């Protein structure tokens, strides 16, 4: 009855879990559709609020971009474990050796990919509407968004795991996420402003990178502990 096994590597497990989430998102389109709609609404509001001059629009656009990124990150990360928690699927995953670490990286990359997709659309949308040429001074804004989005997702994915068992998690995630990400958002906005002004944004980029490294390390450590409580502790006393 014994069946030969080939223990998968961490990368293989991450890929399997990531594929699964992407497949489900492609079928349902829940997260991408709501995030894109939200982004469009936010940009529209700024259009109607109106910037008085083109210069004001150009200088305000990075702020809009980062504000939208932060809100979209919340939309993305709060759904992180909803599907797995529905019928206790996360518990089955936690029984598998190594799957807890793989699940963290898969969810992190998944959230990051979705956020990056929406950020890409936002970049085009904000650039088009406010006539901002993001790429006139190189790709610094795009790089800042990529790195900053990764940091937002690292914090958000960990928080989603920590708060997965809580009833009001949709409310609590943003309440905790935003204060934690203030340094990241400031650095991101500053890097973007510096880039469109043609200034050096290197120091801000390093700040974002350090933030990313810190929260990926912390997240990986906290994630397994958090999920043990959320998925394993069923809390009933049958």
């Amino acid at each position, binding site marked *: 009855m014994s069946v030969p096994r080939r223990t998968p590597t961490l990368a293989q497990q991450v890929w399997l879990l990531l594929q699964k989430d992407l497949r489900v998102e492609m079928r349902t389109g829940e997260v991408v559709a709501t995030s894109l709609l939200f982004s469009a609404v936010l940009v529209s509001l700024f259009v109607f609020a109106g910037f008085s001059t083109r210069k004001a629009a150009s200088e305000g656009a990075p702020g809009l971009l980062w504000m939208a990124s932060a809100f979209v990150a919340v939309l993305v990360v709060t759904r992180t474990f909803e599907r797995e928690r529905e019928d206790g699927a996360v518990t089955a995953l936690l029984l598998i050796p190594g799957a807890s670490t793989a699940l963290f990286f898969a969810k992190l990359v998944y959230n990051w990919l979705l956020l990056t997709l929406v950020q890409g659309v936002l970049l085009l949308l904000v650039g088009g509407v406010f006539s901002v040429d993001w790429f006139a001074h190189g790709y610094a804004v795009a790089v800042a968004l990529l790195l900053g989005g990764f940091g937002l997702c690292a914090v958000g994915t960990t928080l989603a795991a920590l708060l997965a068992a809580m009833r009001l998690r949709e409310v609590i995630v943003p309440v905790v996420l935003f204060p934690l990400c203030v340094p990241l958002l400031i650095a991101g906005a500053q890097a973007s402003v510096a880039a469109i002004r043609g200034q050096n944004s290197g120091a801000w980029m390093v700040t974002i990178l350090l933030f990313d490294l810190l929260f990926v390390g912390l997240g990986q450590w906290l994630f397994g502990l958090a999920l043990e409580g959320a998925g394993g502790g069923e809390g009933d*006393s049958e």
Partner: protein
Amino acid sequence: MGGALRSVELRSATRFFGRHVALYRCSLKLVAGEVVAVLGPNGAGKSTLAGLLATTLAPSEGEVVAAADRMLDSSELRARVGWVSHESMLQRELTGREQLALIAGLYGVASERVVFWLERVRLTADADRAIGTYSRGMRQRLALARALLSEPELVLLDEPTTGLDAASREVLWELIGDLRAAGRIVVVITHDLDAPPELFSRAVVLSQGRLVADRSGPESLSALYAAALQRVAP
């Protein structure tokens, strides 16, 4: 990996949820080849017992000890567990085949086993439908396949007959017989007192978090259950 699992033992294990005592000083040793029926009314602590054995719950007091060629730590024991809980532990957006392929891939089990298990639980024809469209019984059969796919040495079946028709129950009893023959430890938490008694090498009864009966042999489950609860009745 430490050799085949020989025994799992709860040593005076107590589990609290807040102030509520779900399981109190429960001592139980399960050895390879045993099929143990766990009986008890709602709230008796049966699922808590399963959680402790699966190591997804830690005992508040006492310990869970697993032995193979050497003592195993909780992560080594967990890797040998297959668990059908009262939740299906399936992701409803996936198809049955995708769900099993995912679990097989994560364990490193060959993909041919997916085909084998779909056939075994009679879901081949529905394998490419989303789990969300399955009936309760179909989900339960898929949950069984999901739990047994990795050839676990400690199999925890919490209400495995829920939603199963007579033919599917026969498949389940057959599977349990195979697991017993293969020397696995099988724990069947059930309210189904009509389950064939010869299937179980042992039966235990929990009541209000306490182990109140522990019998070996083919005694009828309903007789054991009635006698045990009568003894503890106030």
